[in-house]
């Protein structure tokens, strides 16, 4: 199947222009045109089949979990749009080659253009709602790039931003609508959705789904009241306007109306919303088109007006109206693209687009004048041109609509009014610019543009004439096919011809032409009338509201996030109190059914000391050293508590960590103020005490409630399997290195990362080092007391031996890698304290980072090793070995894992403490020292 190629070729094509340089402009243009030309060839090759009634599909699974498939279809509707996108796209490539100035980057322009073309093709070929949405958003993004192509201009940037904001927002609404439709139907497959009209419209979610999808379509097609972005998107280079704002991007909205017509249309809701929105847009924009002075401004508003016309036709409850809408899509694309090109040529050759300055250009650029005149005549609906036929069809359909009941006459009257205005602004456009006296004081001397720049216009205007003269021959096949895809019915009796005889629509057309000329002649009065209204710039209003929104957001953020840690803590604690406290309120009574265990004096004394030390830490916190000593008392008591309640491993760990923590905080205190100034107000202290008391109360109640209730533990499993499965008698250690080894691996990784983070924080840190304590007493001159030095030195081998012992027995007796690592670290730290950093540095001249990292690596590799034997990650093996003289010994791979833990703990702890200690010396962590030691 070659369907995906149609999308893929232009996508690849967006890379092609980037390959050649900006100077080779011909090469650049031709090579860019190559791939879309091939894609157009493929489309044309499929065309006969499609016209004959075939629908081609191609589908690949993309994200099946989301229902998103890479599915494409090629039916009549796709064909019509593909011909427009690729055909006009090729003409635009040719036109832009001559339009862009030498300093504009052509590769960038073509790359954006091809990207846009790809997304547009994706929209019209998507056979899956979600895929359609993806391409839809891509058009918003790529059109943002194109509108902002001249990014050095503020107008372009702002226009691009506004277009992106409006269409992007609409796109998100559309996605929500698609999701609703997908939920109703059960799939995002386009064909199924199109076939499920009754299901969708019977569902209560039809209303929100329809509104959301229409929001997407109306923002994209610039329907009132979302029309305001389009005139400002005119800051784009004119080829972009000619492509995006006449033939493609803004047509995506009406394409969506046509595509989903079988599924969504037909209800009263659709009839009213779509028709009336289109009607209002048509008249509103036509009126403003008449008032604009900028050539492109006139064209932009007239585009909005014509899009309104098409929208209205898709809204009307008649099949012929839909056909008329499809026909007008073709016609509008041809004449509007030609007109945009002519405005580009005028701008290019005269240096201005201001209608007030331009005049009499038919003498200097006769061919452009003739072509623009014909295109404008088609836009006005002058007979023998294609615009006339579709306008005639439109007027016929408005006569037949049953909308608004007794006020049904309003629709054709308003439609005629729209046509009158359309004639007036077309006439103004041509007569003011090309006729009258020759303009003076133009920025450039006008002359005809190079022929290749006029060629695309020539082709488009040629199409206008040919379709206008012999519509049945040229487009009836295409229209039939597109209509089949849109209304899923045998084609209505469609007579494409110029002459239908004298009838009401013809009269309305005549009124439109005469009225248009009439309004044109009295336009001065209209301008004067409009002057009494204040000028309103949509861009300013939009940016103002965005700024207001941002300001409001910033104020709200500042209020919530004011940089006060104390306030964040407050909110956190209040939330915790609220959530936990409300849970406690649900309890019938705090005490559970379990019998309390007896108290003894030792327990009471221990608890008393712990509570006093804890309170002391808090109350004496302004005298930091005292507070720290109180803290260490709490730590030791906690360690004793663990020992009392049958947890020797925990007691050992807590003890070792306590030592390390106190050393760390002492060291830190050296660099920090020794006292906390009194600064909290009385009210603040009361508030915090109350809060803390409440928190403590909740924690204690929770703990009591937990302790007095019977509990089922899952620990029986670990107790039963520890020896047989893990080969160890110390269940805690077996859990750490075996059952929950993955947790431990994560744990030591975090430890290692924290240590490395600390190392970096200490890098090049320079702090004030006090020369005396807080009382003003100088430090002792005896930095390294002899007694401590001697003891620590002889203690070191013993301590290391103990740590090895604790490590080895860890699997079967209390101990293990964590504790052994801490003991080793403490022994080495003692050396630093006793002998000073210089002395220790000479003897321990290695970095600690590699040790910690090696530890994590060993633990990970041990885990990975079990893969080699076909087991899961971190499966352990163990066996009993008999070694001569030593006896039977048990070795387990878990021990290797524990070695990793040991090394990580040693490395991380020393990395933290030794480096912190080095701050006082010339060995402080810095880049230079790193080079020396590594």
């Amino acid at each position: 199947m070659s369907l995906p190629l149609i999308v893929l070729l232009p996508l690849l094509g967006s890379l092609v222009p980037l390959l050649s340089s900006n100077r080779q402009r011909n090469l650049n243009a031709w090579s860019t045109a190559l791939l879309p030309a091939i894609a157009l060839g493929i489309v044309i090759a499929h065309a006969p089949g499609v016209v004959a009634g075939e629908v081609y599909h191609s589908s690949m699974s993309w994200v099946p979990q989301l229902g998103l498939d890479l599915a494409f279809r090629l039916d009549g509707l796709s064909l019509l749009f593909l011909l427009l996108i690729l055909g006009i796209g090729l003409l635009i490539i040719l036109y832009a080659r001559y339009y862009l100035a030498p300093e504009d980057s052509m590769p960038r322009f073509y790359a954006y253009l091809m990207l846009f073309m790809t997304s547009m093709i994706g929209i019209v070929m998507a056979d899956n709602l979600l895929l359609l949405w993806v391409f839809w958003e891509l058009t918003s993004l790529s059109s943002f790039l194109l509108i902002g192509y001249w990014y050095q201009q503020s107008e372009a940037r702002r226009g691009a931003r506004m277009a992106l904001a409006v269409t992007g927002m609409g796109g998100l609404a559309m996605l929500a609508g698609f999701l609703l439709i997908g939920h109703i139907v059960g799939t995002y497959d386009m064909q199924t959705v199109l076939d499920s009209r009754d299901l969708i419209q019977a569902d209560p979610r039809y209303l929100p789904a329809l509104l959301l999808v229409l929001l997407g379509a109306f923002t994209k097609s610039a329907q009132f009241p979302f029309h305001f972005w389009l005139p400002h998107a005119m800051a784009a280079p004119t080829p972009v306007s000619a492509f995006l704002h006449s033939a493609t991007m803004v047509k995506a909205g009406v394409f969506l109306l046509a595509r989903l017509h079988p599924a969504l249309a037909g209800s009263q809701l659709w009839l009213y919303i779509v028709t009336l929105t289109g009607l209002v847009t048509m008249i509103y924009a036509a009126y403003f088109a008449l008032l604009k002075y900028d050539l492109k401004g006139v064209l932009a508003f007239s585009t909005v007006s014509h899009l309104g016309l098409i929208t209205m036709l898709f809204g009307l409850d008649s099949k012929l109206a839909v056909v008329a809408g499809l026909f007008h899509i073709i016609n509008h694309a041809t004449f509007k693209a030609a007109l945009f090109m002519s405005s580009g040529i005028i701008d290019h050759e005269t240096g201005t687009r201001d209608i007030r300055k331009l005049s009499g250009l038919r003498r200097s650029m006769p061919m452009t004048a003739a072509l623009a005149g014909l295109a404008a005549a088609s836009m006005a609906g002058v007979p023998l041109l294609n615009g006339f036929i579709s306008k005639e069809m439109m007027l016929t359909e408005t006569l037949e609509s049953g909308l608004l009941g007794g006020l049904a006459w309003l629709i054709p009257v308003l439609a005629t009014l729209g046509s009158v205005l359309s004639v007036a602004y077309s006439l103004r456009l041509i007569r003011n610019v090309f006729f009258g006296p020759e303009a003076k004081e133009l920025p450039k001397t006008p002359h005809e543009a190079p022929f290749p720049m006029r060629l695309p216009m020539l082709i488009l205007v040629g199409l206008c004439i040919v379709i206008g003269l012999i519509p049945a021959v040229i487009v009836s096949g295409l229209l039939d096919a597109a209509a089949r895809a849109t209304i899923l019915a045998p084609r209505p009796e469609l007579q494409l011809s110029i002459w239908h005889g004298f009838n009401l629509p013809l009269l309305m057309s005549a009124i439109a032409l005469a009225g248009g000329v009439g309004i044109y002649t009295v336009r001065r009065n209209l301008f004067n009338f409009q002057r009494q209204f204040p000028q309103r710039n949509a861009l300013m209003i939009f940016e103002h509201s965005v700024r207001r929104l941002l300001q409001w957001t910033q104020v709200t953020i500042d209020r919530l996030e004011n940089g006060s840690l104390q306030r964040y803590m407050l909110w956190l604690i209040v939330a915790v109190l609220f959530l936990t406290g409300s849970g406690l309120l649900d309890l019938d009574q705090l005490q559970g059914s379990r019998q309390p265990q007896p108290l003894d004096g030792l327990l009471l004394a221990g608890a008393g000391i712990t509570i006093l030390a804890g309170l002391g830490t808090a109350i004496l916190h302004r005298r930091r050293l005292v507070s720290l000593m109180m803290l260490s008392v709490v730590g030791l008591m906690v360690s004793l508590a663990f020992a009392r309640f049958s947890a020797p491993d925990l007691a050992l760990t807590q003890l070792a960590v306590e030592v390390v923590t106190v050393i760390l905080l002492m060291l830190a205190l050296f660099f920090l103020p020794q006292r906390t100034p009194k600064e909290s107000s009385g009210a603040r202290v009361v508030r915090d005490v109350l809060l803390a008391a409440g928190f403590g109360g909740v924690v204690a109640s929770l703990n009591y409630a937990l302790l007095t209730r019977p509990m089922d533990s899952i620990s029986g499993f670990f107790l039963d399997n520890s020896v047989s499965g893990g080969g160890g008698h110390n269940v805690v250690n077996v859990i750490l290195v075996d059952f929950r080894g993955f947790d431990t691996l994560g744990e030591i990784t975090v430890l290692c990362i924290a240590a490395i983070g600390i190392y970096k924080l200490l890098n090049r840190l320079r702090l004030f080092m006090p020369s005396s304590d807080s009382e003003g007493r100088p430090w002792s001159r005896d930095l390294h007391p002899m007694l401590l030095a001697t003891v620590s030195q002889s203690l070191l081998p013993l301590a290391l031996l103990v740590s090895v012992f604790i490590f080895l027995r860890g699997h079967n007796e209390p101990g293990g890698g964590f504790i052994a690592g801490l003991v080793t670290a403490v022994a080495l730290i003692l050396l630093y304290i006793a002998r000073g950093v210089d002395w220790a540095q000479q003897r321990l001249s290695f970095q600690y980072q590699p040790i910690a990292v090696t530890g994590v690596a060993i633990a990970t590799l041990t885990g990975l090793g079990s893969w080699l034997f076909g087991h899961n990650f971190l499966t352990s093996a163990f066996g009993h070995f008999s070694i001569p003289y030593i006896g039977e010994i048990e070795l387990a791979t878990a021990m290797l894992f524990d070695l990793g833990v040991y090394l990580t703990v040693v490395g991380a702890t020393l990395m933290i403490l030794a480096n912190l200690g080095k701050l006082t010396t010339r060995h402080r962590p810095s880049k230079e020292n790193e080079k020396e030691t590594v």
Partner: protein
Amino acid sequence: MEALYATVTGFLAASGLYLALRGRTFPVVVGLTLLSYAVNLFLFSTGGLTTNGAAVIRDGVNDYADPLPQALVLTAIVIGFAMTAFSVILAMRVRGDQGSDQVNDQRGEESKEDKS
């Protein structure tokens, strides 16, 4: 005994929280350490308070202390140390770079309020 244990946990948590709400870095770090003691005690007690339970598997012994909370708390102690270390050294870095040991952003409203 349960009530006493819970009381101790509550007092430690309250003292730790009070310190964590202070406006200078060092008391906050000490407070967090105290809070982590309370949390460890709390977590440990979820296995029940066992007196004279066996910690290591022996033949013929049936009264074991619950090993699972112990294993969890063991790693929590070590991680708690890493956290204390990281926060205190962050505090030192802030003092080194900004010359202040206040926990609040100096631009904030609250710090002004605290100074007064």
